[in-house]
């Protein structure tokens, strides 16, 4: 079986873990009338009393082994069929031909960023369609955690730390100010509005407000390359645009933000570990490193593709599970693990990447569907933040670009500072970041943030598309002429053969 199918199979199975559990306790509908339970199709008799009138207590009414009602069955079939439909759509959405068709229509940017799948999730969660109901969604959390872990791992795995040795002097400053600008301005602007319009009595002394501001700022700070091609196509190497490199480095900011949020905004009252908040930063780092070393050692054991698949899937599921269980972010933990696994000398890197690449698109799209389902579109307060979020990013970016050009512009090669764009797409990780935090906290502020980031992301993508139509910016090529070649891990499979199944990387032609 081709790897995408294997890996997607795993996603389906994990998804249905949740669904089955959800269906075990479907919502009780007012018109539901219990029917006689059956076992293997046989109606169970209802024993009244022992036939011989002995002292033996009468067996209680049979447990409802298959105690289904017609509505239950219909509900189950609808949910399962709906989910299967979503899986198929996610698969088709990543198909090479579909992506090419989108490109021809000129809507590739918005589509490949996955927003139709967010909309699909939002639709599936409506009362009318009722596929992704709150109980189903609640039970789909394992998929969400796994998906977040997968994305974290894939992002981390593509960070070739040898690149950091070769970036020009001043790059760190540029990244810092270009991240800090949008972070500060977005957080300040949105924070003021949240205080002004809040209905839950939020104040500046409220830890949840600060968490939300850090989250918004972090989400705003991250940028994506001008054309988002999915998470599995981010490894920067000579010949690719600088925006790819800078966005990859930007994402480290997101991971740091997540580690910070999950360490300092915790509710551990009901848990057995009572630790100072800062200790959780070290736990996050330590767990990521431990998992990374473990996966690094584990991938050396398998003797076949099937075993290799089992170990990689198991490793990431285990890492995501550990992170979620400890109320940490699967993205951050798996990111650290991913960095370690692929940056250690490792003969299995190509095999790991092959598996990661193949599942990336379906996992990403399924994750977007769930993101859409948990998104409360009707919450007007979140929409209020959208223009501020978008404007805050642009102004912040402008400030950052200006500052970096003034301070380090002379040090940097062309395109590092002087060709920076003010309207840059929001990183796909931003939505993952917000959904990751949403799965950990359930207070009033979170729906605002979800709407602000998803809405802001869509608005930004539309702006970028418009801007791209008006004036195509020539993509800068390799600016690190004298640097040594590095492995082109993301060129796996670029053999010129048209492969079946989802497309995971489609810009072999060069920078975009």
């Amino acid at each position, binding site marked *: 079986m081709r790897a995408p199918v294997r890996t997607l199979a795993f996603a*389906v199975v994990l998804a249905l873990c949740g669904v*089955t559990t959800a269906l075990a306790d479907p919502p009780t509908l007012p018109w539901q009338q219990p029917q006689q339970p059956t076992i293997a199709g046989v109606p169970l008799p209802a*024993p009244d009393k022992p036939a011989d009138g002995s002292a033996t207590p009468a067996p209680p009414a*049979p447990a409802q082994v298959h105690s289904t009602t017609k509505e239950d*069955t219909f509900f189950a079939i609808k949910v399962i069929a709906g989910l299967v439909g979503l899986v198929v759509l996610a698969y088709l959405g990543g198909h090479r031909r579909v992506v090419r068709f989108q490109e021809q229509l000129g809507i590739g940017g918005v589509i490949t960023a996955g927003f139709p799948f967010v909309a699909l999730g939002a639709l599936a969660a409506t009362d009318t369609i009722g596929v992704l109901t709150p109980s189903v969604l609640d039970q789909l959390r394992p998929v969400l955690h796994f998906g977040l872990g997968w994305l974290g791992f894939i992002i981390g795995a593509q960070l070739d730390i040898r690149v950091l040795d070769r970036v020009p002097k001043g790059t760190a400053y540029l990244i810092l100010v270009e991240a800090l600008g949008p972070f500060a301005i977005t957080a300040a602007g949105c924070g003021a509005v949240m205080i002004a319009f809040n209905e839950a009595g939020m104040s500046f002394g409220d830890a949840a407000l600060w968490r939300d501001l850090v989250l918004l700022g972090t989400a705003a700070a991250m940028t994506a390359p001008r054309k988002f091609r999915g998470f599995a196509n981010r490894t920067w190497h000579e010949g690719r645009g600088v925006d790819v490199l800078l966005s990859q480095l930007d994402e480290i900011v997101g991971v740091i933000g997540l580690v910070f949020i999950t360490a300092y905004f915790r509710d551990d009252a009901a848990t057995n570990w009572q630790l100072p908040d800062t200790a959780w930063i070290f736990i996050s780092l330590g767990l990521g490193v431990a998992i990374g070393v473990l996966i690094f050692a584990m991938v050396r054991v398998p003797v*076949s593709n099937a075993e290799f698949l*089992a170990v990689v899937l*198991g490793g990431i599921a285990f890492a995501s599970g550990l992170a979620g*269980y400890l109320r940490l972010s699967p993205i951050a933990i798996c990111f650290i693990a991913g960095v370690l696994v692929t940056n250690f000398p490792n003969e299995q890197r190509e095999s790991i990447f092959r598996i990661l690449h193949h599942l990336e698109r379906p996992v990403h799209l399924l994750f977007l569907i769930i993101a859409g389902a948990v998104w409360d579109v009707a919450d007007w307060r979140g929409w209020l933040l959208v223009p501020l979020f978008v404007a805050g990013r642009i102004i912040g970016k402008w400030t950052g670009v200006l500052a970096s050009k003034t301070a380090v512009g002379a040090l940097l090669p062309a395109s590092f500072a002087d060709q920076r764009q003010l309207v840059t797409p929001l990183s796909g990780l931003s939505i993952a970041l917000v959904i990751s935090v949403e799965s950990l906290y359930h207070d009033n502020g979170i729906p605002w943030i979800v709407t602000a980031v998803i809405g802001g992301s869509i608005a930004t993508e539309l702006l970028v598309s418009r801007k791209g139509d008006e004036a195509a910016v020539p993509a800068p090529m390799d600016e690190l002429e004298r640097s040594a070649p590095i492995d082109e891990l993301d060129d796996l499979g670029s053999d010129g053969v048209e492969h079946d199944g989802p497309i995971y990387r489609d810009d072999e032609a060069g920078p975009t």
Partner: protein
Amino acid sequence: MIPLMLLLAVGGLMQAARSFTADTSIAGTELAFGYLLLSAYFTAKIFNRLGFPKLTGYLFSGVISGPFVLGLVTKDMGHSLDVVKDTATAIIALEAGSELKLAKIKPVMKTLRAMTVFAVIGAMFAIGGTLFLMRPLLPGIFNGFDTTQSLAICGAIGVALSAQSPAVVMALLAEMRAEGPLSSVVLASVVVADLTVITVFSIALALTGAVIGGNIDVVETALHVGWELIGSMVFGLLIGALMGQFLKTVKKGASLFGLLICVVVAEIGARMSLDPLIVLLTTGIWLRNWSRADSSELFRNFESAQLPVFLVFFALAGAKLDIYTLWAYLLPVGIIAVVRAGSFYVGAKFATKITGAEEVVQKYAWFGLVPQAGLALALALVLRTTFAGSFGDGAAVILLGVVGFNESVAPPILRRILIKTGEAGKKQGVDFAAGGH
């Protein structure tokens, strides 16, 4: 050495995480999935080096990690992974069906029929009779029931105890890459026996309920049994035709399509009172024997992708094994396990002899009926929940004990038999368990 160290590391991390909180509702499912997958994989590696089948390693890993030993995987976590079990059963059924090449089985059809009658149905009577005689040893089951009721109870438990395990047999045949007359007869006989057990159990359960509860609707029972069997077969044929059409026309993505079919049938089938096992068994038989589509590629691809699901499936089966109960009921469990194996031995020997089966089949085919796992566990659960507060709990204890005993003892012996007969390693192709190419 490395698998052992990795196993300890994974176990250590799991133990550390579980000490954080007892609440498994957040992230417990994926944690259990990842942990069981890895621990089963590395335990199997260790067991394999010691000469045991990998399957035993999967099961052992589940037992040790499960709620009855280390408690790393709780009952709730196991419950949340039930869909893995259902899907694995569906995949096994599809593959088992695809292994049944009727042209090859036709010559041994007489043997299969005879084995079903003398070994499987014979075992039901033998086990039921033994239970009836052991009533004084099992007060938790028979106290307060008169002779007629006790007979009905013995019948229901006897039928459930005679269940086989196509999953274990399939997994072992795949792991050993076994092919030959013995492998064919063993696989076909467990599949046919399973169908027989499912049918008879449905009837026995209704009768037992009627005898204890005092009423029975014969017509409705017959209709339901008929729907389950015939309906499942018809659905299986329809799905087979659908898959065949897909293979002929769409071709690409057939494995994903097949997997989705398995998931949907596993989850929806039971809700429609269909038996997913029968549905997909029929589908597999159709695709292999009558469909014009070439399904060999589909099944070959399927095999290589199922390892993660099977690792978790068997580890979960192990996790559900209550070793304390097994210990407490060791004597009756031991007696019943011996009687069960003995009746298979006598029945199968007789059946294979009178039908003139090959010598290797005459000698060893009986043992293929001994392993137990998924179906027997499911039937134990059905008895326990159906007759909770009555004999259900006691019956489940005995059933789980016997299943646990056979689950632990049978795979290594069957493995040795496959090696001894020279059928191991004869099959070409991908092996999900050994992971060969």
